[in-house]
């Protein structure tokens, strides 16, 4: 397996881990973290794609740089919403599911 394939598969696994965290965890802050994992897994996959064929293509690199900054600003807004919600309701996690719901 070449280095690029290794990083691309790592990116794919990261996306899977991130999605699991987004679906299966209940605390909102952990969900924001999971969202960040999906984002950076995607960037890794995309970056590896852009480096195939010998030369590194600058277009994916430029998009990833803007993507990292945008993902960060989205996280900052998300974290702000989590904190604001906790102040209003005193909780920052989804309640436990009732059986049969």
């Amino acid at each position, binding site marked *: 397996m070449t280095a690029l394939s290794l990083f691309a598969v790592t990116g794919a696994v990261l996306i899977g881990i991130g999605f699991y965290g987004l679906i299966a965890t209940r605390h909102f802050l952990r969900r924001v973290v999971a969202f960040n994992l999906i984002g950076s897994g995607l960037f890794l996959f995309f970056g590896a794609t852009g480096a195939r064929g010998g030369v590194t293509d600058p277009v994916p690199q430029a998009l990833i*740089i803007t993507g990292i900054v945008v993902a960060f600003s989205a996280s900052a807004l998300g974290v702000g919403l989590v904190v604001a919600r906790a102040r209003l309701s005193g909780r920052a996690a989804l309640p436990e599911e009732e059986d049969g719901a």
Partner: protein
Amino acid sequence: MTLAFNAALCALILAAALATILGRGIFRSIMFFIVYGLLMAVAWVRLDVVDVALAEAAIGAGLTGVLFLAAFGRLVREGAEAEPPRRINPPAAVACVGLTAALTWAWFSLPIPERPGPQLAEALPRAGVENPVTAVLLNFRAWDTLLESIVLLAALIGLWMLTREDDWRNRLGLPQHVRPGGVMSGFGRVLPPVGLLVGVYLAYVGADRPGGAFQGGTVLAAVGLVAAMTGLVRPPRISAPGWRAVLVAGPLVFLVAGLAGALLGTNFLTLPAPVAGGAIFVIEVALLLSVAVTLTFLVLGPPEGENRR
């Protein structure tokens, strides 16, 4: 040896990512996310994309950690950091394994393209800079960058909309205090000058080496954050006109340059070759300042009064 190194690096990255999701307690999750960001910066260097590695090092390993830790502290004070007991969710796990498998299949079945496209090599001499990543960011695909700087501004406005009515006139973030002459205030006096130098250096070399306005801006944002947290400077209020001007300077200068391109006969946002170098320099300075200030304000958060429980 390099394969063993890459494999070990990927294993550590995956271990850290799994631990953020599966570890008990939100604090542990945040710590592993910081570790994960550090390892990702190394991974980007291994992929030979230093431009991305610089951005990841400043944001993933620096700013995001402070953002999450500050949020965790606020949740602790609200008594909302506890997590309900978690169970394994088998359907979600199966779906996510399926997603990973599909992406892996996609990777191995995609045709290998010819890189980079011949258009880029042909166009690069007209770009005005030698670093192809900077050329793409600020000239060839300037649309993305312009809209991205506006997204940053929109996120900040959204965050500020969460301010409470009585906090509106306070300074951004929590009112920081340190022991005068203590370790933290000493650190806050030593680091910012060096950090300013590094940030400006990264932005300056961006024309022909890895670096640029975004990479430099993220480093400057981290420096601004250190200065605010250690009490070296006090954050401004939302209404401060000078800081508002800096926030919009980046997108505004970008738009003006784009319109000028349209008036000078080329298309909107396409910089004519003779002035491209100078125009990129002006845009970069404005973007550097806007990105740095916006990111700092995003981490500091909306204004909060003193000792709010």
